[in-house]
C-alpha cells in the first residue's frame, strides 16, 4: 500500500482518533525527508550545505575545506519558542462533503492536528480556535503534552454550526494573537472577499506569518451536475432553483474570480494562500502547507 493510499482521506476516514490520523499524516509527510521545516540559528548541528555566493562565510566549515578542498557551510537546527495558532472555520458550510469522503471540517481538523503534533515536536506552543463568527472556543498557546491532548480533543469534538463571518472571527482572533506567532486559518472562504481581507489584515498586523488554507469539496470547485436542482444554502437555508448544467460555467468563472481576488490580496498582505481539496492526500496538503512561500 503506497503513501497516497494510506494517507488518503478515504482511508484515514475509516480510522478513529484524530491523534492517530495526525501522527500518520505527520509521519507520512516527513518520511524520507528528515529535515526540519524550520531552519535557522541553533547550536544543534543539522547538515552541510554547499556554499553559494551570498552565504555568510562565518558558517564555512574550514576543516572540510582543508580536507576536501570544498566550500561547505554548516547548518543548525533552529530552536524557537514560536506559538502556532490553528484557527478553524466551523461554520455550517464546512460540513459539506459532496464529491469526497470527508467533510471540509474533517479534512481541516486532520491538517490542524498534524500541524499541532509537528509543533509540539518542535516545542512550539499550540493554540487552537474555532468558530463561525465569534470564536466559539479558544485554547491559548502552551507547550505541554496535556495541552496537546486537550487541543486534539477540542479538534476532535468540533462540530460545524453557524453562519460564516470570517471578518469577525479573524478580527477577534487577531486580538488574542501574540507577536511572532504562526497562524494557520482553515476555512472555505464563502464570504465576501473584502470582509475576509479585512480580517486578514488584522491578523497580519499582529504576527509574522499567516497561512490561509481554503478547504473545498470537489463539488464546490467543479460545481454540481444536473439540470433541475433546488440548491439549499447550508448556513442560511435559503433555496434557489437552478439548472446546474447551464450555470456551471458561470459558477466556475465566478469561483475563479473570487479565488483570484483573495489570492491577490493575500499576496499583497504577504499571507500564504493555499487551496486544498478534500480528496487530496493529506501529506500532499501538508507539504504544501509546510512549503516555504
Amino acid at each position, binding site marked *: 500500500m503506497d503513501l497516497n493510499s494510506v494517507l488518503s482521506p478515504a482511508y484515514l476516514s475509516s480510522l478513529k482518533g484524530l491523534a492517530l490520523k495526525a501522527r500518520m499524516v505527520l509521519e507520512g509527510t516527513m518520511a524520507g525527508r528528515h529535515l526540519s521545516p524550520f531552519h535557522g540559528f541553533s547550536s544543534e548541528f543539522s547538515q552541510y550545505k554547499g556554499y553559494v555566493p551570498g552565504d555568510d562565510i562565518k558558517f564555512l566549515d574550514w576543516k572540510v575545506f582543508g580536507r576536501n578542498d570544498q566550500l561547505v557551510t554548516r547548518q543548525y537546527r533552529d530552536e524557537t519558542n514560536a506559538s502556532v495558532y490553528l484557527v478553524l472555520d466551523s461554520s455550517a*458550510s*464546512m460540513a*459539506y462533503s459532496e464529491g469526497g469522503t470527508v467533510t*471540509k471540517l474533517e479534512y481541516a481538523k486532520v491538517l490542524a492536528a498534524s500541524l499541532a503534533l509537528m509543533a509540539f515536536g518542535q516545542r512550539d506552543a499550540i493554540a487552537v480556535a474555532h468558530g463561525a463568527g465569534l470564536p466559539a472556543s479558544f485554547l491559548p498557546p502552551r507547550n505541554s503534552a496535556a495541552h496537546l491532548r486537550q487541543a486534539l480533543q477540542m479538534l476532535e469534538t468540533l462540530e460545524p454550526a453557524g453562519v*460564516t463571518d470570517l471578518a469577525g472571527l479573524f478580527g477577534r482572533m487577531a486580538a488574542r494573537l501574540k507577536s511572532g506567532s504562526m497562524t494557520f486559518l482553515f476555512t*472555505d472562504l*464563502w*464570504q*465576501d472577499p473584502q470582509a475576509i481581507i479585512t480580517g486578514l489584515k488584522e491578523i497580519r498586523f499582529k504576527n509574522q506569518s499567516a497561512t490561509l488554507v481554503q478547504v473545498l*469539496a470537489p463539488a*464546490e470547485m467543479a460545481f*454540481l451536475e*444536473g*439540470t*433541475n*436542482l*433546488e*440548491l*439549499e*444554502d*447550508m*448556513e*442560511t437555508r*435559503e*433555496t*434557489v*432553483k*437552478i*439548472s446546474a448544467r*447551464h*450555470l456551471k*460555467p*458561470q*459558477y466556475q468563472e*465566478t*469561483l475563479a474570480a*473570487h479565488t483570484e481576488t483573495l489570492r491577490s490580496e493575500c499576496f499583497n498582505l504577504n499571507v500564504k494562500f493555499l487551496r486544498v481539496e478534500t480528496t487530496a492526500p493529506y501529506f500532499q496538503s501538508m507539504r504544501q502547507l509546510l512549503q516555504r512561500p
Partner: protein
Amino acid sequence: MFSLLSPISLWLGAALAVPLMIHFLGRQRLRRQPFPSLLLVRERFSKSMHRHRLKNLLLLLIRTLLILCLLLALANPAMESRRASAKPDISIALIHNGIYGRLQPQGDAGEDPSGVQASLPATPNAQGTEALDLQWRRLRALDSLAGIRSQVLPVIEDGSGAQEVSERFGNYGGAVGRAIAALGSRPGTAQIHLPVFDWGELAALQADLSLALKEHPGLQFVLTDYGKAASRLSAFTGLKATPSPESPTIRLVARLSPEAANDAGGKTQVSLNGRLFQEVSPLGGRAEVTLPLGEGPRTVGKFALASGGFASPEFHFCFPEAGEWALAHAGSALASLPSLGRESYFRRIVHVASAKDIPWNGAVGGAGKADQGGMAKTGSRGASGGLRLVYLAAERGAQPDVYARAVEYVKRGGRLIIGVGRESDIPMLNRFLLQPLRMGRLGNLVETAGAGSASPAPVSIDREALARMGRLPVDPGTLGAVRKRFAFAPDSGVEIILRQGGVSEAVLAAREFHKGQVLLWTTDLDDLEWSDIGVSPLIPLLHQAFQETGAGDRAANLAVASDSIYTASSGQDADGMAAVPAAAGAGVSGNGTRTEVFDPEGRPFTKVRADGSRLRIGPFDRLGIHLIVTGRDTAAFAVNLASHGPAGGIRAAEGISEDPSATAWAEANEEAKAGFLKELKPFRGRLTVLSPGESAVVQASVRRLWPEFLLAALLLLFLEGLISATFSLRRSRT
C-alpha cells in the same frame, strides 16, 4: 381547400408528445441539493435562469413545430390551386356506354357529337406547366341502341385536338389504367372525366383509383353521375297504345315512374324513326302522344326524358309498304292493340281513312286519284306490287261506286276482307257488295249473349276449310267469344270457316269469286263488345294466310309465327320456351333447313329447336321484333312491348306493366355510389361528382405542399441551432 393525401401519417403525431413530455417531466423532477453557500450562485442565478427558461421555451416551440412540419410533409398535404383550377394541364374523358340505352345529346343539335373541346397553348405558361382550356360540352352519343355494352373509350384531348387513346376497353379498369399511363410523368395536374352509369361497376376499381390518386398527386377524377339518369331508362313503367276509331292514328300513353314524374321539367320527347316528333309535358305521371299511322313501312318510336339523357324503351310498330297492301279502314279500326308490332301482319296492310280512300291504283290517296287501270293492274294475282289485300269495313255512307270497284278488284284476282261494325250500312252492303260477290245477305243484329248470360256460345272452326286457306296452325288455340254479330244467309258456294252454332250462324265466311277471294266477317273484330276474337293470334294469321294463298309460290317458304304475347300465357312451356307454330312444318325441320331466330338487337337465340311443325324458341327477354330466318326467307313476330312478358294476354294488351327491377337497380346503384365515395373520402378534394350537364371545368387542381413543409422543417432546424448557438455565445461572453 387544404387536404391531406396521406392522412394515415398523422398517426405519427404521437411524436409530438416526446418534446412536450421531456419538457414538462423535466420541470417537475426538481432535486433538492444542499450547497455550502449560494454566494457565487446567487450572483449569476437570475440572468442565467431567465435566459435558460426562455431558451427552453423557444426550443420547445421550435422542436414541436419542427416535428409538426415533418409530420405534415409526410402526410402529403395538398391544396386546391385556384389559379390552376381553371387550367388543368391535361384532361382525359372516358366515355362509357355500358348501359342499355341511348345518350341524349346535351349540346346544340348541329354540332359534332364529340364531347370535349380543348385548347392547349404551344408553350408552357409562366409557371412552367401546360395549361388546357377545357370545355366540357356533352358526352359522345352512343352509336345505337344495339351498341356493344361495356365499352369504355378513353379520350385524351390536348390543344392539337389529338386523341391520344383511341382503343376501346371492355371495362373501366383498363381504360383508367391506360389513361393514367398516358398521363405518364407529365407535370402539373390532370383531370380524368369519367361518366358513371353503374357505380357498382366503378366500385370494383376503388383500390386502383386510390392507388392512382396516391401516386399522382396532381390527378383528379371528375365523375359525372348518370346513374340516376340511367334509372330513367326504366322511368317509363308502362306504355299503352290505343288506336283511334275515327282517324288513322294511334294514341300512346306512357306511364312515368314517380321519380321521373317528379323530375324538374319532366319533358318527354317522342321521336319516330330517329327524328323528334313531339315534346310533351307529362300530366299526372302520364305522357300522351298521338301518332299518325302509315308513316312508313316500319316505324320505330322512342320515349325519352328530355333532361335525363337516356332513352326509354323503344316501341315498335310496323306498317306495310304504302301501296303494296291496303286496308280499307272505316269506323272501328282493325289495328287493335294486340296487333301492334306484328310486322308480318301489318306490313301488308295500309290504313286508309274510309272506303273512298282505298288506293285501288296501288297508291294511298284520295278516291279521286283511283282509277280502274290501277286496280286492274294491282289486282292481278301473283303480281308484285300494287294492291293485294283489302280489308273493307262496311261503313255507313259508302258510295256504290266504291263497292263496284271492290267487286271488280276481286274479279281481277284481288283479295278482299269485309268487316262490319255498328256503323255498317247493311242494306247498302248487301245490295252493292255481297250480292254482286254472291256471298249472301247479312241480316239483323244478333246478340248471342244476353245481359244475364255468363258466356256466349263458343266459336267453332271448320278445319278443312281453314286448311284450304293456306298454311295455318294445326291447333289455332282458343278463339274467344262473339257477343254480337249480324245474321248471315250465305249463298251456295260459300264456305263457313267460323261459326257460332249452326250453319246459319256464321262468323266468318269465305268464297272464291272469279280470280279473287273474299272473306266476310259478320262481327266486329275490334270492338270487344262484339267479340274478342280480334285479339286472337289466329286472326292475323288467318288474314295473312288468306292473302298468301294468292301470292303463289313467292311465299311458299314463309314461316308464319304466332304472337308470343299469347304463347307466353298459353303456349309457353315449362322451360320458358315459346312454341311457335311453323306453317305446314314443311320448310322448317322436315327438309332440314336451318332456322335461326334473332332478337331485336340482332343476337341469335341460343335455344331454338324444331320439333315437327313447331319452332321452340325462348326464353324471351328482349323487346321488339324478333326475326325468324328460315333458309332465304325471313319472317318476324313481336314479342312484347313490356320488358318482360306479363302473365295475362289482356294485361299485355293494355300495355301497362310495372318494372320493379328498375327501382331496385336504382337503389343498389345509389348504395354503390355512397360506398364508393366513402371509400375515397380521403381524396375528396380531388374527386368530384357532377350531375349530367354540369360544367366540369370548375374543378380545382391540387398543389402539393410537402416541399413547403419540408422547407419549413429545415428552417426550423436551422433556427433551433441558431438559438442554441446564440445562447451558448452569450454564456461564453459573460
